[in-house]
């Protein structure tokens, strides 16, 4: 098992957000974490990488418990995180954003270079010197994914990669995620958009009000429209 999360409970101040969340991600798998706005998807990801101070539970990554480690150490072990709101460094150029994400090559994992990323996201190759703040939403989404890949992760948590993007860019995102899978990476994406998730995922979890409500293959989910209607339909 690449990543194993069990009994994850998180709080923001007095508010209890996650209740005993458990996830299991195998090596090379693409798994979707589905749920509505406010269901706890982003908090799950932020808790896994240690960005939520009040959290309890275990996070096993590559067989080691990382739940007590500071964020930067978790990330350095190859657990990449792409935040929902992209959080690119708007005063830094594309190249410089990549530089911030760069980590030493890791044995047994694909090593990314800016040139590889420019191939994956041709748009970025044309604006290497442009400050991140002067890019479109789609370009920023490519940049934030590329920036995380520069850390040569073996697993990437991708928080809502299709949010607010034009259909054409969403397709490009799907291609990029499949390319990551092709390099042997595990990918966990959080999504509200079932159609997008179906395109790329092997399995899916559904989270609602901080609890995991469903776990199964995409085919299982297709076969049970009542689950989809109960937890995903708007």
């Amino acid at each position, binding site marked *: 098992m690449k990543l194993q999360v069990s009994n994850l409970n998180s709080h923001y101040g007095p508010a209890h957000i996650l209740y005993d969340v458990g996830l299991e991600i195998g090596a090379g798998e693409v798994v979707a974490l589905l749920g509505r706005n406010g269901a706890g998807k982003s908090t799950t990801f932020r808790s896994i990488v240690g960005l939520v101070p009040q959290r309890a539970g275990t996070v096993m990554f590559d067989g080691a418990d990382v739940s007590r480690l500071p964020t*930067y150490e978790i990330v350095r072990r190859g657990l990449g995180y792409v*935040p929902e709101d992209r959080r690119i460094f708007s005063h830094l150029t594309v190249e410089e954003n990549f530089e911030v*994400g*760069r980590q030493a090559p890791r044995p047994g994992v694909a090593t990314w270079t800016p040139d590889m990323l420019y191939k994956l996201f041709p748009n970025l190759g044309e604006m290497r010197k442009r400050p991140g703040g002067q890019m479109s939403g789609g370009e920023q989404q490519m940049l934030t994914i590329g920036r995380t890949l520069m850390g040569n992760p073996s697993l990437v948590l991708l928080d809502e990669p299709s949010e607010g993007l034009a259909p054409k860019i969403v397709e490009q995102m799907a291609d990029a995620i499949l390319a990551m899978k092709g390099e042997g990476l595990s990918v966990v994406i959080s999504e509200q958009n079932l159609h997008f998730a179906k395109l790329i995922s092997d399995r899916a979890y559904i989270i609602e009000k901080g609890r995991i409500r469903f776990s199964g293959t995409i085919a299982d989910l297709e076969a049970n429209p009542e689950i989809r209607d109960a937890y995903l339909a708007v």
Partner: protein
Amino acid sequence: MEFLLVQALSGLASAASLFLVASGLSIIFGVTRIVNFAHGAFYMLGAYVAYTLTTRFAGPFGFWGAIVAAAIIVALLGALMEMVLLRRIYQAPELFQLLATFGVTLMVQDLVVVIWGPEDLLGPRAPGFTGAISLFGRMVPTYDLFMMTLGPVVLGILWLLFHKTRWGVLVRAATQDREMVAALGVNQKWLFTGVFALGVFLAALGGALQIPRTTVTHAMDLSIIVEVFVVVVIGGLGSVFGAFVAAIIVAELNAFGILILPQISLITVFLVMAVVLVVRPWGLFGKPESAPRAAAGLTIRPWRPFTQVERAGVALVVVAVAALPFFLGNYALTVGAEILIYVLFAASLHFMMTVGGLASFGHAAYFGLGAYGAAFLVKYMGAPMEAALIVGPLLGLAGAVLFGWFCVRLSGVYFAMLTLAFAQIAWSIAFQWVDVTGGDNGLLGIWPATWASRPAGFFWLALGIAVVGVGVLRMLVFSPFGYGLRAVRDSALRSEAIGLNRQRMQWAAFIVAGTFAGLAGALFAFLKGSVFPDYMAIPTSVDGLVMVLLGGVETVSGAVVGAVLYKALAIWLMSQTDLSKLVLGGVIVVIVLAFPKGVVGFIEDLRHRWPRKGNGATVGATKAEAA
């Protein structure tokens, strides 16, 4: 014409050191969000260490080696301070960080005197730059020319460092979003330490490079820090280029201001700063702060007025204090009156700081203005004490109206720095305008009326005024104005959405606080029988801050308790040790680290741990405490 050019060149030479120190402060703030008050202390240490290295150990290093070595040694000290002290308080409210670094400043001031002695020291000239060359028929020291070129060179080096090295790129990224940098696998701890060391290195280098130009004194820390605050307020906190431009502006204004208004040269700088703040509140090259943290934020426990029982308790305490003159001697009563005056001063600061969320680092200005107001009335108009006590504080009010108008345009650390700068300006006016204020000699012979001339009588007078003043301030806390003020403090946006005018309310709070501080100051003038510029100096402002902090920033009555404890402790310490600043600085650091909620906050915590029956607020408070 030639004279003006030479004057401009001299200004450029002074700009270099100012730029070095200000850019260091800016870089540190950008990444750590800490305004390092101790930056002036590091500047001074740089000069002292460079003095020792160049005079005693010039052999192994040579002059220039000694200058760089001094800056490196001080930078290591700065890194040590970051690791031992600041790492523990990055999450604390800004006020605590400012106070902690101020505590260090105080300790360094005494340590410098212990190590290097109280005399001014004269360092060696820089080899190769000892002479002067003739420019436009006037002699310009070659060292000034060297300093002039140094500024742009350092700016260029810093630009290369921040744009062409991985470390610099990481620093710029962290300036924008620290959490994201950590989420990309960067260990922020060492990044912070490195940034801090670099900032301190620049400050120390600025100090070390001063030794061929001026003497090394143990007052150079406060004089530079105020100018540096002005520079970063004008240039924009966090912007190195802004620091460069603003350092030149300020240095040139100083160079020419002395020609136009030799009496009050700081006025020109003040005017420019005022204009910049009105047009661009975040400075010429700064960026608006996204979400300034309010001074409050440690606990959320609803305030409530006194119950009947508590009111009776307070009345009992007042009666007991009023009976003290029957038991105490004259010296103790004079000390008691001083403590009472500081109770009122601390309560006025508490009102704007805790209730208004405006942490002022220059509250002494209004204390001092009130004192001068009373003294002017007595000296120049022959007014009796009673009239002077009523009219004198109006000068404090006037100062608060004027300075407050500018200050409330800012918030957080900008507000704190600006209040400090205004207080220093008020101080320098009192210090330099000898014809009116008597300058350093002060105004003497401000004696109370006959009935209050005995210590007991004055004690009762001070008690009466303090009780009424604190009572009025407390009533204001629980008035609609007080509620509005707290709403504005907690969420400026939401309170504006319900129709509260943030700036006007905070301005009003500023004026109320300034007036009561002025009243305390007027009383203080009669207690001492004299007025000096030092009443407005930074230590008085910080005394007030420590009193509020010691009592508990987030309590209603903390200021009173804190003032009594602190003033008594300070007066006792003065009589016990010559190194009072060292001890005081240490006390401040310890309070910030170990006692962040203050004495009253600590007691309230204990009380709420064992909730009593019928206390409706407890359930909500306990819940909120989990935050």
